[in-house]
């Protein structure tokens, strides 16, 4: 009698495929002996009567891996084994020549499924989502999340995926998954579209069959609860045939993909085993596990009996297998916590087979900081620093930033044909150095209060170069006297109705919040009544009269909230909206004002290059458009300062190092939202970038969240008293810094 072993038989809310494989085999073969092999009695499928016998192994931490491999070898020589656990498959593939009875992929085939680059995607005609492998510099991770609007997935290399909404959710997910999956995590782009799954079986490079499953019911965690199955045919089948041949595939496999609206398909996972829903395919008449066994064992064929094209799961109590209770394996509380979600012990196996988590690279010295934009030239040869923490302003770096912004505006104007003015956002960082730079470069300045207006006037700005924004820009107006400014954008219909006809400005406009955007600012266009009220308010301003102010629209959605690509689409929607107002009111839109909390990287790499095209399209669609105003804040100010700090204490363990410095989140309040880079000065005065590692840097405060850097490699030569720097200490890290835990000492710069 042929014996087939099946591993990974847990059948819970996140099931493994073993039970479905066994049921499919039993449906085709009455006379095959089915044995469940798993690593805990908590694998509930062990108790199902489809198995003639069970073989429960000790948990992975206790197994001698050589002996266990010998057992698997024996099983696969005397009979057959269909593996159902990704990490088990990966472990077996290491230095192992699979016997004839092993019905799974070998090492060469497995390389095609590597989640890092998914080489199989190209064979299959799929695209691959953007991906970053962890560990990676915090700034790179933050950039990824920012540019994708906060949306993405944090995944283990073999198991688990957490959906992300923003940077904070990424940090929480990373903390949760980091220890469980030491072989590393992956940060993957979220693709919008319809989910699809393809299950297939192949034997020695020959495709035996494939089905596509569409989920028709899902659990709150997104797992399949019901589905519709149909055979794969046509070009997809052909591509899969060729791919199985190229990969040399044997065993089951599952492709998980997303099909975008435009028909593009993105491969998001390639699992090297049958999916948990595999028996649903058998129900639909395609018994892939049976076809696999028949091919391997040389059986003439498989009788397949289609029952329905759709399947549904139900909850079903079954008796416990005699002599096999869940209490058979004693567990400690900590193991119980770990195995609760993973009864087959995959986190424990991951710990055993993972490589050393991170290579502790020596800190990279900066040979010539003037050669790179990342390290301010002001730091070269820096000595004689007194008390720290100290926020050191960087005039040269700042001047460079403002020069580049000026050039960008000129380039965009030249290419788009639309005059562009830059308005420096005062609230971002009102330091005199930055305000002076804005004045010198002939920028406008954006103010949200009369206090800021006074700051601008004191710095030398004429009122005609002031743009007023915000919910209460006229609050605290001295003597109720309003100065004539360049532009004023109302934050609400109420403000527009109350102030619009008497606001002393060359441009009168309104900030809008487009449908689907969550914010407290701007006129919400989610509601048709508000839309009508806005249209009516604009109509009643009398701006069509000669000598009246010009009318403008403003959009200030943070690009990090929606993603840099989506931000550009929102701008196009703003232009459509402007066109609608022009048609309904009969009033041309003369000015578009754009803000968006652009990080310097995003501004330089993404939005800057796109602006010409966006404004060119706007000019084509709005014939009365005369100018655009850009309101960069972070883009100009973030890199204008570095926070110097000294090492106070170094705490080393065998695994990691924790550095305590005299700076804190009080001086860098925006760190929780946006990590920054840290550098250290060696005793010869050279500055060094901190590379990624296992260590962290904490501040002087008695607050759990006073952590300045995570996953960095603290140089071995660092000593108490040594100088370090926190880059990107301008913008909101400066303007929102606060005094805390310093008694009566003055706040830092």
């Amino acid at each position: 009698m042929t014996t087939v072993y099946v591993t990974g038989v847990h059948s819970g809310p996140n099931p493994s495929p073993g039970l479905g494989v066994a049921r499919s085999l039993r449906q085709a073969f009455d006379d095959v002996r089915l044995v469940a092999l798993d690593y805990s009695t908590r694998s509930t499928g062990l108790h199902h009567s489809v198995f003639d016998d069970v073989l429960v192994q000790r948990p992975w931490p206790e197994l001698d891996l050589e002996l266990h491999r010998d057992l698997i070898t024996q099983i696969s020589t005397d009979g057959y084994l269909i593996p159902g656990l990704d990490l088990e498959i990966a472990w077996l593939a290491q230095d192992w020549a699979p016997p004839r009875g092993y019905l799974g992929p070998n090492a060469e085939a497995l390389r095609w499924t590597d989640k890092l680059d998914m080489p199989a995607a190209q064979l299959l005609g799929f695209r691959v989502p953007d991906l970053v492998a962890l560990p990676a510099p915090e700034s790179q991770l933050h950039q990824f999340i920012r540019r994708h609007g906060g949306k993405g997935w944090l995944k283990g290399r073999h198991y688990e995926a957490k959906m992300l909404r923003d940077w904070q959710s990424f940090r929480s997910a990373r903390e949760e998954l980091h220890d469980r999956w030491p072989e590393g995590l992956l940060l993957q782009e979220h693709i919008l579209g319809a989910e699809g799954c393809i299950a297939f079986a192949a034997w020695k490079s020959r495709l035996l069959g494939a089905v596509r499953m569409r989920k028709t019911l899902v659990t709150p965690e997104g797992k399949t609860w019901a589905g519709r199955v149909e055979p794969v045919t046509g070009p997809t089948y052909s591509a899969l045939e060729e791919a199985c041949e190229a990969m040399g595939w044997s065993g089951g496999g599952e492709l998980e993909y997303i099909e975008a609206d435009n028909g593009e398909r993105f491969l998001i996972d390639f699992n090297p085993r049958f999916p948990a829903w595999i028996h649903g395919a058998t129900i639909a008449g395609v018994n892939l596990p049976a076809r696999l066994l028949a091919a391997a064992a040389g059986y003439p064929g498989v009788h397949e009996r289609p029952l329905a094209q759709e399947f549904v799961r139900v909850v079903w109590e079954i008796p416990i297998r005699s002599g096999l209770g869940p209490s058979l394996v004693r567990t400690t509380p900590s193991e119980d916590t770990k195995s609760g979600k993973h009864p087959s012990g995959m986190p424990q196996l991951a710990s055993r087979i993972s490589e050393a988590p991170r290579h502790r690279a020596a800190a990279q010295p900066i040979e010539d900081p003037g050669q790179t934009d990342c390290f301010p030239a002001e730091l070269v040869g820096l000595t004689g620093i007194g008390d720290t923490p100290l926020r050191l302003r960087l005039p040269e770096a700042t001047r460079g930033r403002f020069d580049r912004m000026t050039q960008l505006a000129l380039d965009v104007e030249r290419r788009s044909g639309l005059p562009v003015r830059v308005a420096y956002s005062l609230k971002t960082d009102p330091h005199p150095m930055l305000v002076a730079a804005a004045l010198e470069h002939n920028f406008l300045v954006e103010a949200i209060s009369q206090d800021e207006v006074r700051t601008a006037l004191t710095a030398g700005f004429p009122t005609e170069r002031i743009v007023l924004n915000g919910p209460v820009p006229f609050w605290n107006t001295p003597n109720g006297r309003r100065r004539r400014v360049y532009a004023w954008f109302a934050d609400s219909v109420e403000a527009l109705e109350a102030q619009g006809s008497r606001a002393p400005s060359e441009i009168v406009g309104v900030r809008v919040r487009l449908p689907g955007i969550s914010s407290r600012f701007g006129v919400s266009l989610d509601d048709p009544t508000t839309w009508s009220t806005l249209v009516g308010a604009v109509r009643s301003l009398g701006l069509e009269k000669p000598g009246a102010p010009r009318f403008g629209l403003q959009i200030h959605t943070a690009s990090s909230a929606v993603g840099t690509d989506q931000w550009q689409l929102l701008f196009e929607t703003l232009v459509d909206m402007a066109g609608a107002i022009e048609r309904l009111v009969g009033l041309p839109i003369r000015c578009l004002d754009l803000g968006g909390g652009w990080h310097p990287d995003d501004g330089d790499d993404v939005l800057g290059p796109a602006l010409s095209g966006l404004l060119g399209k706007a000019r084509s669609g709005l014939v009365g458009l005369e100018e655009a105003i850009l309101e960069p804040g972070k883009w100009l100010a973030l890199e204008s300062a570095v926070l110097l700090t000294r090492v106070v204490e170094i705490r080393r363990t065998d695994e990691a190092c924790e550095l305590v410095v005299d700076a804190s989140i009080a001086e860098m309040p925006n760190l929780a939202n946006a990590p920054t880079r840290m550098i250290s000065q060696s005793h010869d005065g050279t500055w060094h970038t901190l590379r990624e590692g296992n260590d962290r840097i904490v501040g002087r405060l008695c607050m759990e969240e006073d952590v300045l850097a995570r996953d960095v490699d603290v140089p071995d030569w660092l000593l108490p008293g040594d100088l370090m720097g926190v880059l990107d200490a301008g913008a909101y890290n400066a303007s929102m810094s606060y005094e805390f835990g310093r008694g009566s000492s003055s706040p830092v710069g």
Partner: protein
Amino acid sequence: MPSRLAMHTSSCCEEAREWLLLANTSRCRLSGTAVPGWLRDRYDWGPCRWPFHWCEAVRSTELDCGALADMADECLRSEGLTTSRVQVVKSFSPTDVGHWARRWRAAGGSTWWIGDGLIYHEDVAIMGRTLRVFDPTDNAWVDETALTGYGRIVAIRFVPAVRGVEGSWAAYADGDWHITDPSTRGQTERAS
């Protein structure tokens, strides 16, 4: 003929329609799909009184299948898609339709669309390389699974006309909807 929202001569309805298209464009660009699933998120399904004007419809909390289909049609066409309105007869139990009839009568709505276990319903079709039918009331694509079981489609017709015939019956075959010969009534038969 399929339901059509009406326009007042004053600007109120034009404003309302502009708002709908703007809201749809914004949401579609954010979501990356041209399908106006947000309509059903915003509006509950319920009785309307016809003639129903755009300015009333966008401000309602409930819309019937006709209003939803007309709005969905406008949204899809504004995204550059070629569409067709779809009229459907579906089969439900007399108990089910009894609930709906009472609710519509209580709201002063018309119950002409409710028969004896059969109801009239409206969807919208996207006509491209393949013909796909979207049900904005259920916020779902309509495929061959809709031809059997609970709430099954017993007849389906695409409007405007194809090949000069007013209304074109359709059938589902080979994974797609197909316009059938309007002289036949093959619309209830599944392709083998």
